[in-house]
């Protein structure tokens, strides 16, 4: 079976991100999964990757890979596409992942499909990818006609399933980026304080607040509910426009697209713009004082009421449940 390359995402300390396990599960449906691991020693990550089906792990610790914006990583992948002749390359559908995919597609003259939520093997060794379009209103089935398919897969869309490989073979790769790939130099990092909350796009539960929260102070109740449920915090455009919560937490057409097991929309009316970012969530709960709010059309469970009385009661009840 042909190899399928998976670009691993991991923390600085070498912890494999959940999306990488999801990519491995997708890769296993298309061929024999080979991970591309950039950065320091794969270490303990190796066992985790093998547990989810990695048969081979290419490792590369060239400082170029993190010292410049995406171009070197795309160059490394292009080299591996050349040498390994994979059936496809799978990358996480994040801002950076999509950019790497785009550059790789140009380098290899290949078709690229982004924000994919499912892949299956097609005829003649090809693949068929599912992509939600227009915020999930339409599902498109796409194929790649030219080159080695470059596919970015949306976090949280595919359930990672353990599929133990005997032991992943480690293959170190020597690499130095070209001058052209070293044009945009990273000179520093500023890490945002994030606390213990899960990533918005990877979270199992997302609690989002809208205009109904009324102010930055009012929005604090959304964070409280999120923490009680172990959830990520999201916000509607009205909230980020007003500056009540930072822009990177905006869920919607022009913000993040999320697809958690549970989405709790609090004080959000549910305009098309917002629904486009969350309507593929598995279960949706809405709390809004306007009975006519369109959010109730997509909600599995809705409460028409004032969020400032409903949510505190909900918090009390969650607290009681935890004490049982």
């Amino acid at each position, binding site marked *: 079976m042909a190899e399928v390359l998976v670009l691993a995402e991991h923390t600085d300390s070498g912890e494999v991100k959940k999306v990488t396990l999801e990519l491995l599960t997708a890769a296993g449906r298309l061929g024999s999964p080979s991970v591309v691991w950039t950065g320091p020693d794969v270490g303990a990550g190796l066992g985790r990757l093998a547990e989810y089906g990695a048969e081979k792990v290419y490792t590369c610790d060239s400082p170029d890979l993190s010292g410049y914006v995406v*171009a070197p990583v*795309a160059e490394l992948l292009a080299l591996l596409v050349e040498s390994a002749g994979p059936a496809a390359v799978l990358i996480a559908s*994040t*801002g*950076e992942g*999509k*950019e790497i995919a*785009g*550059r790789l*597609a*140009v380098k290899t*003259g*290949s078709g690229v*499909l*982004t924000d994919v939520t499912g892949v299956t093997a097609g005829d003649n060794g090809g693949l068929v990818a599912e992509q939600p*379009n*227009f915020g999930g209103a*339409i*599902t498109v*089935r*796409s*194929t*790649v*006609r030219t*080159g080695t398919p470059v596919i970015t897969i949306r976090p949280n869309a595919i359930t990672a399933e353990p599929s133990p490989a005997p032991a992943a073979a480690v293959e170190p790769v020597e690499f130095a980026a070209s001058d052209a790939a070293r*044009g*945009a*130099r*990273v*000179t520093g*990092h*500023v*890490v*945002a304080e*994030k606390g213990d909350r899960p990533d918005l796009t990877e979270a199992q539960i997302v609690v989002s607040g809208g205009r109904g929260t009324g102010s930055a102070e009012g929005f604090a109740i959304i964070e409280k509910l999120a923490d009680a449920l172990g959830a990520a915090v999201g916000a509607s455009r009205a909230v980020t*426009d007003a500056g009540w919560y930072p822009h990177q937490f*905006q869920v919607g057409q*022009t913000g993040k697209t999320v697809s958690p097991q549970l989405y709790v929309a609090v004080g959000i009316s549910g305009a*098309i*713009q917002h629904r486009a970012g969350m309507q593929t969530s598995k*279960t*949706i*709960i809405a709390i809004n004082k306007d*009975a006519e709010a369109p959010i109730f*059309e997509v*909600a*599995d*469970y*809705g*409460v028409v009421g*004032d969020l400032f*009385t*409903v*949510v*505190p*009661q909900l*918090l*009390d*009840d*969650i607290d009681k449940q935890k004490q049982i």
Partner: protein
Amino acid sequence: MNIVVCVKQVPDTEVERKLTAGDSTLDRVSVDGVINYLDEFAIEEALTIAEAHEGEVTILTMGPAKASESIRKALSMGAHKAVHVIDDGLAGSDALATSLALAAALKVVGFDLAVFGSEATDARTGVVPAMVAERLGVPQLTLAGKVDVSGSEVTIRRVSDEGYAVVTASLPAVVSVVEKINEPRYPTFKGIMAAKKKPVRTLTLADLSIDAGAVGLAGAASWVEDFAARPPRAAGVVVKDEGDGGGKVAGFLSDRKFI
């Protein structure tokens, strides 16, 4: 300083959008076209940089005749001139083909800084700025939450969920900016009047020396096999809070094993 802003006309996101049954391309006819909302931030950023550095702003758009509406709007915001890449052969182009045409046009027009929005609200691939940088072999400074130009260098804050990275490069370079990096200006009446007289140059595939087989539906490297409307969500339960709303939500959560 020569700044080119790549602007896409897209169907209005406030209304329902459709795919055409025949060739699965976006129905751009029955829905009003507007400037991609995210490109407005790119236009504003370009105008701000041009004002500080005695620059000139050119709008570069690829699209059918109708896209001239968006070109006029961008010119009325204050851009100086525009280039419209227009050719029937481009219809149905995927990201690979779009980046090929835009890169070729940027070469013809010349630029110190090419500015993009972070993505277009129709296809939402977010890959085109990176592809254009790759094709032109110039530095890619994308997903910027802040842009500073100083002499022949550009420095950005590249934003991510983790925070941001500081990235520096020499010009010429490709930059993309994220939503809310600035507050896009509204066209003034004077601006709207002035826009009518601003030059718009058109370029065809032949002008760009691009073979028609390399772009459009004919050259598509990715292909839509079929599509279907997502099945509507089953109707849920909506209750009125009678002083027990929070408890009811807790009950639902507990039934579904979320708590």
